[in-house]
């Protein structure tokens, strides 16, 4: 579903809290019970991302409630740690639905946890808003009426990078990506889209380090051995730090283009510090240099509350709440069936600007920034960046129809 220029302008022009508290949406029920969101995430298993994420949604809840809530009701988030295990997430989803009587479910970082909760939602016919899980399956192969997903998927992340990758005009590519579905899916899409866009491109080697246990020296040497023109990277977190350090010392990145997913996100860029390689084409968020009003407002509010710079996780956490609020506001109720219809096409503000829930596959159009890495005062930053709206990185409606059953 295309977004009209007017919606964009309207949403972008007003502050986020004001949008949600728009008089038309406020009903005379400010005294009624809060809208309850049951939230599940891998707070202990993936703290580097999820701790800022929690701070992000806490800020959003506070802001929305300060502005009068949604439908005149306050938002309340009941949040649990899934310990990184899908089976625990399933039990907690049940607890949230049955004991805490939440109106909808949200959260997830790991793809399998997201899919597990989504499956509960399908079975129980309750709404689930997946905030972070990136697997395409969530809205495509395993997509269903009750599951919405906020962030750009692995396909979208890759699609956002492909333009710049093609411009490198490199023939021999190698890939390195963590050995699980996320990493495999990244490489699969990158190969597919590159082959489509640049006839004659070759993939001469691939490395699949185990998540969290990369043998960086051997991996770097094995990649260098293939004498590639360019490298596609899907590793992140501790693996990325090890990979970059070995790569720097061994000169893997010299005179080679590197296209790297998520590396521009502050949580992954920060540990690279003064070893941040320069000129990598990455997705991420240039938190230091964004200048537009919505970003600025978010960063300032966040710093005021927590006294530290927000991370990508903070943005996702914040947007997850505003996206839910936007959907509920449009629906006008928290009835599950009504929300499953009403969320489709609903617009919402995010720190990156306005976005909406695509009607066709329940995917959010929250975008991400694409740019190049650079170093400033011993810290990694993003330069030459641009914001890519999620809507611009989707496959055609025709293709989505083939990928999404029902």
């Amino acid at each position: 579903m295309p977004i009209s220029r007017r919606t964009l302008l309207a949403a972008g022009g007003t502050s986020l809290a004001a949008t949600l508290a728009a008089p038309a949406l406020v009903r005379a029920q400010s005294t009624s019970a809060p809208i309850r969101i049951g939230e599940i995430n891998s707070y202990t298993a993936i703290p580097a991302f999820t701790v800022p994420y929690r701070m992000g949604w806490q800020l959003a809840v506070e802001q929305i409630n300060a502005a009068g809530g949604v439908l005149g009701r306050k938002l309340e988030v009941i949040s649990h740690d899934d310990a990184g295990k899908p089976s625990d997430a399933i039990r907690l989803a049940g607890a949230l639905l049955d004991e805490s009587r939440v109106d909808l479910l949200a959260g997830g970082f790991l793809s399998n946890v997201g899919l597990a909760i989504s499956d509960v939602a399908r079975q129980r016919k309750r709404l689930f808003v997946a905030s972070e899980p990136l697997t395409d399956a969530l809205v495509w192969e395993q997509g269903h009426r009750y599951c919405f997903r906020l962030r750009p998927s692995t396909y979208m992340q890759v699609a956002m990078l492909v333009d710049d990758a093609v411009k490198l005009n490199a023939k021999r590519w190698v890939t390195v990506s963590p050995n699980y579905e996320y990493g495999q899916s990244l490489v699969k899409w990158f190969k597919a889209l590159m082959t489509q866009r640049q006839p004659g491109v070759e993939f001469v080697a691939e490395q699949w380090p185990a998540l969290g246990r990369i043998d960086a020296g051997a991996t770097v040497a094995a990649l260098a051995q293939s004498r590639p023109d360019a490298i596609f990277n899907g590793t992140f977190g501790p693996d990325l730090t090890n990979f970059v350090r070995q790569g720097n010392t061994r000169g893997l990145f010299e005179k080679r283009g590197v296209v790297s997913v998520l590396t521009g996100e502050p949580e992954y860029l920060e540990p690279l510090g003064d070893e941040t390689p320069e000129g990598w084409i990455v997705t991420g968020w240039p938190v230091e240099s964004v200048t537009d009003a919505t970003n600025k407002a978010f960063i300032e509010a966040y710093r005021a509350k927590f006294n530290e710079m927000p991370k990508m996780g903070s943005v996702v956490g914040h947007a997850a709440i505003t996206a839910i609020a936007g959907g509920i506001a449009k629906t006008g109720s928290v009835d599950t069936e009504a929300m499953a219809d009403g969320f489709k096409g609903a617009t919402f503000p995010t720190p990156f600007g306005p976005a909406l829930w695509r009607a066709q596959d329940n995917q959010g159009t929250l975008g991400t920034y694409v740019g190049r890495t650079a170093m400033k005062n011993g810290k990694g930053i993003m330069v030459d960046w641009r914001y890519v709206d999620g809507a611009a990185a989707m496959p055609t409606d025709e293709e989505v129809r083939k990928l999404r059953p029902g």
Partner: protein
Amino acid sequence: MDFFLLQLLTGLASASSLFLVAAGLTVIFGVTRVVNFAHGSLFMLGAYIAWSILSRLPRTPEHFALGVLATALATAAIGALLEIALLRRLYRAPELLQLLATFGVVLVVQDAALWFWGPVDLAISRPPWLRGAIEIAGLRFPFYDAVLIAVGPAVLGLLLLLFHRTRWGLLVRAATQDRDMVAALGVNQRVLYTSVFALGAGLAGLGGALALPQGSANLQMDLAVVTDAFVVVVVGGMGSLGGAFLAALLIGVLQAFGIVLLPKITLVLVFLVMAAVLVLRPHGLLGRPQTAARSEAEALAPIRPAGAALQAAGLASLALAMAAPFVVGPYLLTVLTEAAIAVLFAASLHLMMGPGGMASFGHAAWFGIGAYAAAFATKALGGGLATGLLLAPLAAGTMALVIGWFVVRMSGVYLAMLTLAFAQIAWAVSFQWVEVTGGDNGILGLWPQGWAMDPRAMYWLALALCVGGALLLRRILFAPFGFALRATRDSPLRAAAIGLDAPRLRLAAFAIAGAAAGLSGAVFAYAKGSVFPTYMAIPHSVDALVAVLLGGVQTMAGPIVGAVAFTVLQSWLLTSEFWRFKLGLLIVLLVLAFPGGIAGAAAAAWNRFRRYQP
């Protein structure tokens, strides 16, 4: 050719890092027989402490060396504290109880590190000398990797000097061979054990500190490292420093070349190596058969059939359990369903571990195979609940029979680690065979249709199958087969001398345990509506171990009590802040208070009570 040399050197550098982690673990095991699950946590603390020290020091080589040494000393002190406060009290406790205690420590350290150092990965800024490279055959090789290649053998040399040239080292070697002899020599065993543990912890800290310049201190490194360390120690032969060094070389170099030839092998390579080595050499490369740890550990507790009081208590609990759906809310019902499943899972492990005398670190394999079998029955064969519940124990039992053939001839930690290797291989298959298993995204939509859709029906089904299954296992243990199995554990010599075929009995026990675990996995798959590789992952195997040890491995009611207690505790704490810290602390306290497990303590208390009765 140049690449070959470079990759060999790279492999040697990883081998050195592996050896540093494994050395401390093997020294600790050799002397104290403690299976120290917290070794990875000490490594992680080493990395974090090193970050705290090194990021405040000038970035010269001298200060780096000083900082690394200070870190090693600090972790050694932490290790000594751990030994004095916790492990010292457990040397006479039943086998593997220290594993449970150190698992508690792992949980505590995870939350403590998160609280103290925060969630962001911490890296030190590398000065040019740490960042530099040397030219080898026209290719760049990191200078620091070259340093590491030297550090491994240097540490090995220093340790060998320490063990062969000092009186303390003599005592350590004597204790590695025969603990009782050292006790008989009138040596202060306490000081010896504490110092050995401190040395091992210091080596772990050294490993963590030296790993820091290559990456970051982060909260995932403890578990990433501890399995590798165990593999190296076991492949080398437990307690053998030279063996650990050889094993580290073997694995480091194989890994360096393995990923060039088969890039996707990263998940299983070390476990394939371990399985191959153990099948060919059941005590590792340079290991010796373990001296019977049991004879000195504890007199085996007598196993008695339930008395009238216990039977009444059991029946009452069962009646309560059956009535639960009328009383408790839907969430508690889910927890109880999981508890029922955990009971069969733990009881099946207990059959192997207690009466069978075969501890397993990979029991989740059978659980997972059962769960996947149920998924295939539903998805591929289009079968219903009954098909899946029938197929699962068959599949898991058959696989266990095949794998058991390799396993039952071994003993002790080697046996446990071989089961872990097979479990990891099974896990990797489920993880990577995406076309069939869906990879880590799992198989969804297994919710049963019809009557079993009702959570209460699901609960009763789980109760009937799982608690019924556990009671059946209990029945088997009191039947002739169970006695024969226990006989082979109590005294292999006597068992053979009365005509018992120990390998066959153990193999049967292994297959029965596998089938029962498989059934519990299938029930879990239907109760959760989905199957994921995490069902066969190490943490799930650890769950079963914790349940059995918490309940009391030497009691028949142990697995039931332990599984219910652990499931309820975990699901109750999981929704609170710092749950890992609380759960870990609780486990440590329970271990200290009830070394015989909860059921063991209850039985002892009951016996005392009865003795005072007229």
